[in-house]
């Protein structure tokens, strides 16, 4: 009797917290009905999943795991944001049931990962889209617009003053101060840096000679650890500019620059504009492997070009029988429209419908 009462109390408390957290943000409210509506589609499985990898999808995973475990009692899903490299290592070593990664499996990693999958092979499932924001702190300047070439010059240290001719040309009519530009980059190796430098290398070869890498290679600038570190440093000083995951720029209340795309217009960063770039991306993987190649010079009208695609890496076949239902069920949920729309509030962009349906189909084929 007493136990039951406690149970009721706990239920009440849980409902209360749920209701409260739903009230916390308007987008969540919009998302929850659709989430509960599709809960019939999530066929729950029980057991424990251990996954690890990319820290760029940490918040997305946390949200999904919370939502999934609420729907499906008795499941435990752990996601350790240890970094893409560590995640793939763990997947190869067999300690992770699936891995989160900022980049698709590399050629040298593919055979090792395939060996884990008995008869099948390891496939890349694009799941979380994280736009990279270029945020700045410059009093009196709103709606900063930057062409990729200008951005490359700033981060390469070739443009050092805010009133440089290159920046003026991108922002006709804006009054720019004559202060020094302080660039802030990631000091830890990260997929965000990898994507940002890839973007600069692909769109402005002439001005960006440092190639693409997870480590920052350009001279000068200040390093900061993690997107939160970059956001904090940009916020802390005037005249700074840095790149970071979208949600951190939003949370810090920083100004976000509009970036020039291949169509010759300056695109504002929104979930839709980021999704347009993904929709136009080419899928280079075969079969259910949905490895993508993003065209940073996208000609798509209104597309925001600096977008990070992170993957879940799982076996197409040969998943242990006791894990299979849960892997399929969980990844099925994350690829559902309810799962994707739950992310917008967290600073991610949902997968465009064309890509999402492919991912959903690929998850159904897992065996």
């Amino acid at each position, binding site marked *: 009797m007493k136990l039951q009462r406690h149970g009721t109390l706990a239920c009440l408390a849980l409902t209360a917290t749920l209701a409260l957290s739903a009230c916390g943000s308007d987008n969540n409210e919009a998302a929850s009905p659709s989430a509960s509506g599709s809960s019939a589609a999530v066929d729950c499985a029980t057991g424990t999943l251990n996954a690890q990898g990319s820290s760029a999808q940490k918040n997305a995973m946390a949200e999904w795991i919370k939502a999934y475990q609420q729907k499906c009692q008795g499941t435990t899903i752990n996601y350790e944001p240890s970094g893409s490299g560590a995640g793939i290592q763990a997947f190869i070593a067999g300690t992770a049931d699936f891995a989160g990664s900022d980049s698709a499996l590399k050629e040298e990693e593919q055979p090792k990962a395939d060996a884990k999958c008995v008869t099948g092979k390891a496939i890349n499932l694009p799941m979380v889209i994280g736009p990279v924001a270029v945020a700045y702190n410059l009093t009196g300047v709103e709606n900063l617009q930057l062409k990729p070439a200008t951005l490359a010059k700033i981060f390469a240290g070739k443009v050092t003053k805010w009133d440089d001719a290159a920046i003026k040309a991108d922002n006709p009519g804006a009054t720019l101060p004559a202060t020094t530009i*302080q660039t802030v980059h990631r000091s830890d190796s990260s997929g965000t840096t990898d994507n940002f430098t890839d973007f600069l290398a692909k769109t402005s070869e002439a001005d960006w000679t440092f190639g693409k890498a997870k480590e920052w290679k350009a001279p000068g600038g200040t*390093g900061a650890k993690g997107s939160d570190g970059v956001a904090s440093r940009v916020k802390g000083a005037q005249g700074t500019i840095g790149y970071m995951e979208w949600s951190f720029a939003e949370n810090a209340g920083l100004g976000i620059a509009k970036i020039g795309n291949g169509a010759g217009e300056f695109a504002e960063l929104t979930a839709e504009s980021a999704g347009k770039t993904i929709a136009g991306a080419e899928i280079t993987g075969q079969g259910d492997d949905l490895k993508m190649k993003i065209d940073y010079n996208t000609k798509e009208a209104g597309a925001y070009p600096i977008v990070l695609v992170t993957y879940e890496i799982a076996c197409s076949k040969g998943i242990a029988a006791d894990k299979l239902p849960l892997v399929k069920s969980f990844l099925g949920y994350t690829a559902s429209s309810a799962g994707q729309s739950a992310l917008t509030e967290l600073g991610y962009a949902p997968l465009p419908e064309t890509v999402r349906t492919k991912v959903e189909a690929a998850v159904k084929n897992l065996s």
Partner: protein
Amino acid sequence: MGESPPRSADAGTGGTRVTQSHDGPAGASARVAEAPVSTRTPGGAGLGGGGALPRARAFGAERAFRGLTLAAGTAVLVIIAAIAVFLIAKAVPALRANTVNFWTFEGWFPNDPEPKFGIGALAFGTVLSSVIALLLAVPVALGIALYLSHYAPRRLGTALGFLIDLLAAVPSVVFGLWGRDYFSGPVADFSAWLNTYFSWIPIFGGDGPFGASILLGSLVLAIMVLPIITSLSREVFLQTPTANEEAALALGATRWEMLRTAVLPYGRPGIIAAVMLGLGRALGETIALALTLGITFNISVNLIENGGNTIAANIANAFGEANETGRGALIASGLVLFAITLIVNITARAIIYRRREFTESAA
């Protein structure tokens, strides 16, 4: 290491205890008073038989205990050797793959197809930030310790000592975040001020940006090592034989002269040991520096411009996305840090050893 002098000193004061007990500070004489009593009372514990030797069973226990301690001692050596072998085995392939000079190259890109990484700038930054942290922390820490042990009312001293120890329990990530989000602003302003008036000194030169600098990292480190140095040296100062202190006072020394002639020389080995422990923490500090420094790979003595990097901070930054070579390279950097720490420790031991001989012969 610092324990043998106090014991002989206590024995010395034991004899004079009776004459001075009426005005001796409570702590010192109370400790002295306990010792003689405790040697007298356990007499009845089992020596009743007129000094007959215990049976062989005791020798069995004796031998077993000896074996246990020997095993424990050997285990330490075996573990250290195993760690060393493992680290070297991991580091060597990475060092072989390195396409540039490991000691002089300024940068850390071991994950590239052509790995390039160098330890020079990191080792320099590690030593520089730690040394500056100590320069800032040691005078303050000794001041606090002397105040707590010899000036503060006893109750206040205990309370303050407790607070200082509490500071040591704060996780370093908290210091790091505080330094990054709040302390960097004032430090940036202070740096700009230094730069305006003292830019003719190279360490305060440069033209910005300021804030996320070696100075910020060292200040945060200084706050972190402060409690260690303070509480250790406070303990050492409290151990000073009352007789020495009172002898100094009796000869007409002022408080300060008494501290200088009796307390500080007596505590010197202890102070050095405390400073070395603090230095050990500063050298190995990881996350606080990874958060506060501006992370650049160049050797520069400029303290106020954004920049600086240390071996441990670099490991924290680079480990997450490192590949096989990358991890090997980080392990190699760890070995260098190990070597630096070892050198520092050996130097400290040598100093303490020499000092102890000096103080003993002087006494």
